[in-house]
């Protein structure tokens, strides 16, 4: 098959960081080519180079064997390269049709609306999608919004479609439907770059896989040459992965009960609605659900950051519904937040200071009104050693640490007061495999010591691996509990889209 696109020896540096170095691979016409790599391996940077957001420092991009340089995403789009981003570029208040029309090029001033409408409807029908062209976008599910992004690119006759972790926001069923569409696009001769780190999907749809590691393209493998273990091994390389064991069976003692909890968001819509949950001592309770179904509100309600409208939260039988963040912490709930840079750390303060962000009032760290510098430093040294944090020079701002190390700082701080309950919201998102396994290890060891964890994640593989039970959340309500040892992915997938198991 002829090569549609060739990337040769691409190098891109940012100050102090070589983001890409010697990255080469080719995309044939009509193939699904997966880019596989840990977070920080350079996948996003590479795609930004390809779509014209960044100019490469060195290297060539050949399209149809002709060298090209894209100065902007508009230029790459005009050459038929389109990308579906993780965050959709849609106008929520406008209709599906309007959102697609906005993306069209070379439309005459008095555009033939009916004709275009028919053309768009035809494309939608061709792929067997169900989209109401007149429905406003905000009413649609995330999966349907993704279709719109895809159709926008198809209407512009894109030859190369880039999908950046498209399944992160989809149920397993929606993902399966997406894969069917991708297969059909392939038949039509379109090329697809598929970015993912979910092995299962990669195995399912890829013609070829290129593995990126630390900014370099390690190798490209043809279908049939790889299996999950091979891919994982190539992705991780020689990095050491912390080992851990799942904890012992948990007891039946309830440490946390949530009864009919309701939480409204800023717009007055219900994030949680009549939500109930029971957490037992020493268990790891996974919360499965598509992103945006109330997970964040749950974590915030438990840690006192969101106001509870009605319902109760009982910790060891005591009502803590109305307590603020500080007293919840004293009640023993630790929290690993979703957005670690946005609310987990004070970026300009040092590592030492961030480690005492919550406990700075404790008698240990002060002499009266003054801070005890020695105690704070000593605490930091202990934590750095205990949690294997790669700390920079003493006193430098914590924002200079890597994402994995910042996560370790947060975990060290949250677990330092020996909490009874840990609420972890997507704790491994954006971490490399080694750091992610480390987080799992800490949670599993905590469970062994009697800590109960509510682990909110969108990665079913993660939930299967570590959870003792999985609770499924949909539109702010608990759909039900399943046992990861026996429940199938399909069953959880159905529950994630709101179907109550029979």
């Amino acid at each position, binding site marked *: 098959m002829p090569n549609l696109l060739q990337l040769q020896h691409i190098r891109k540096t940012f100050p102090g960081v070589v983001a890409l170095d010697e990255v080469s691979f080719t995309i044939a016409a009509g193939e699904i080519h997966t880019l596989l790599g840990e977070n920080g391996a350079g996948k996003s940077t590479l795609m930004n180079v390809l779509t014209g957001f960044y100019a490469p420092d060195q290297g060539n991009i050949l399209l149809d064997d002709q060298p090209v340089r894209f100065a902007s995403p508009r230029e790459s789009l005009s050459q038929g390269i389109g990308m579906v981003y993780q965050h959709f570029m849609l106008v929520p208040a406008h209709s599906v049709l309007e959102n697609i029309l906005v993306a069209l090029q070379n439309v005459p001033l008095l555009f033939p609306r009916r004709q275009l409408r028919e053309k768009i409807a035809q494309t939608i029908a061709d792929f067997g999608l169900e989209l109401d062209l007149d429905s406003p976008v905000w009413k649609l599910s995330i999966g349907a919004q993704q279709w719109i992004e895809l159709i926008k690119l198809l209407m512009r006759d894109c030859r190369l479609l880039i999908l950046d972790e498209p399944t992160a926001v989809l149920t397993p069923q929606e993902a399966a439907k997406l894969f069917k569409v991708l297969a059909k696009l392939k038949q039509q001769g379109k090329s697809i770059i598929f970015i993912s780190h979910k092995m299962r999907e990669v195995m399912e749809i890829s013609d070829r896989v290129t593995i990126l590691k630390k900014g370099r393209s390690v190798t490209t493998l043809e279908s049939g040459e790889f299996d999950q273990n091979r891919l994982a091994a190539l992705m991780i390389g020689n990095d050491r992965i912390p080992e851990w064991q799942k904890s012992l069976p948990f007891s039946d003692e309830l440490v946390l009960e949530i009864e009919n909890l309701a939480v409204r968001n800023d717009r007055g819509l219900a994030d949680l609605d009549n939500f109930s949950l029971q957490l037992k001592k020493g268990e790891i309770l996974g919360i499965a659900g598509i992103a945006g179904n109330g997970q964040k509100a749950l974590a915030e309600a438990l840690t006192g950051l969101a106001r509870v409208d009605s319902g109760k939260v009982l910790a060891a039988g005591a009502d803590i519904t109305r307590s603020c963040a500080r007293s919840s*912490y004293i009640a023993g709930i630790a929290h690993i937040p979703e957005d670690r840079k946005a609310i987990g750390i*004070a*970026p300009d303060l040092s590592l030492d*200071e961030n480690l005492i962000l919550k406990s700075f009032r404790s008698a240990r760290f002060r002499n009266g009104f003054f801070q005890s510098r020695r105690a704070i430093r000593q605490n930091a040294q202990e934590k750095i050693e205990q949690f294997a944090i790669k700390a920079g020079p003493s006193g430098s701002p914590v924002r200079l640490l890597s994402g994995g190390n910042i996560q370790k700082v947060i975990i060290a701080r949250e677990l330092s007061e020996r909490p009874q309950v840990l609420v972890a919201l997507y704790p491994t998102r954006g971490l490399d495999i080694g750091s992610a396994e480390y987080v799992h290890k800490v949670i599993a060891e905590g469970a062994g010591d009697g800590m109960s964890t509510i682990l909110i994640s969108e990665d079913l593989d993660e939930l299967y691996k570590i959870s003792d039970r999985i609770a499924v959340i949909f539109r702010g309500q608990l759909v039900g509990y399943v046992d990861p040892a026996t429940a199938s992915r399909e069953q959880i997938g159905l529950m994630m889209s709101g179907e109550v198991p029979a």
Partner: protein
Amino acid sequence: MILRIEKREQGSALFRSLTTTASLLCALLFAGFLLFFAGVDPAAAYLEILKESLGSSYGLSETLVKATPLIITGLAVSIAFRMQIWNIGAEGQIYMGACGATGVALFSGLDSPLMLPAMFAAAFIAGGLWAAVAGLLRALWQVNEVIVTLLMNYIAILLTNYLIFGPWKNPDGYNFPLTAQFSDAARLTEYFNTRLHSGFFLALFCALAVYLLMERTIWGFQVKAIGSNPAAARYAGMKTGLAIFLVLALSGAIAGVAGFSEVAGLQHRLQHGISPGYGYTAIIIAWLARRSALGVVIVSLLMGILLVGGDSLQLSWQLPVAFAYAFQGLILFFLLASDFFINFRLRRVKETDDA
């Protein structure tokens, strides 16, 4: 060949201080052009500035006198900066502090040992309450503190005018808009037969107190944490609204102390224009000092040199007072530009030949 802007890694302390020095030199160079076109030899003018401000005991004492209100207000503005709160109202808070101190001095009838502490307390409270209005509005309803503090300057200055033109006017003052002179009990000690007064040592004490408060106490820790990331601070259980209110009130209170120092140490009465814009210069100072209390002291002394030297230029060469302000502006301009070079660098990129 094209130039590209790149983010720089954290520069070393040496690199930072070199950049700051270089930008000061650039400001001197540009001000030199202004002097040149005004028909003045820049080298002679700069020498004159140094000689007049540092070369004699009188010049030195005047420099310290000018630096005194700048240090105090600079500290006031800088503690609010630590929390990313912009107190543009130090000017008005100086006036309110001066009014508070004057009210006590003229009408309390207190005796010597109690008089000055009472004036100090009145100035502290008056300045604090003035800024607390902005703090309350910001903490409760997210009203922008920049607007509130700025606009309240005009109220404070006009209120002072009302007092000195009206109820507080000296009945024996030939109708001039001045209050009566303070009694000796209400005056700060002067030294060496110059205008240097205890206010300068009060300013140094304030610097030490602010340093300890911000760097060593749990309250300062909270302020810094909230300034760095309010969301994280809230999530860690800090009460951000209360802290914002307290920081603005304290900032205003310190600026009020500058008003006390000016009326009790220098003017010995309340009159029009007790602050020729110290509160605004303090914003520049707090910015240049990069949030450190020691930095505020050093920058204020430099500004003092500039003010005293600028005065002498007016006398020797009939340069307008605007020159001193232009010089201040140039310094701020180049230091802001140097911030850019501390955080970014320009790099030459070779155009590849394949295009």
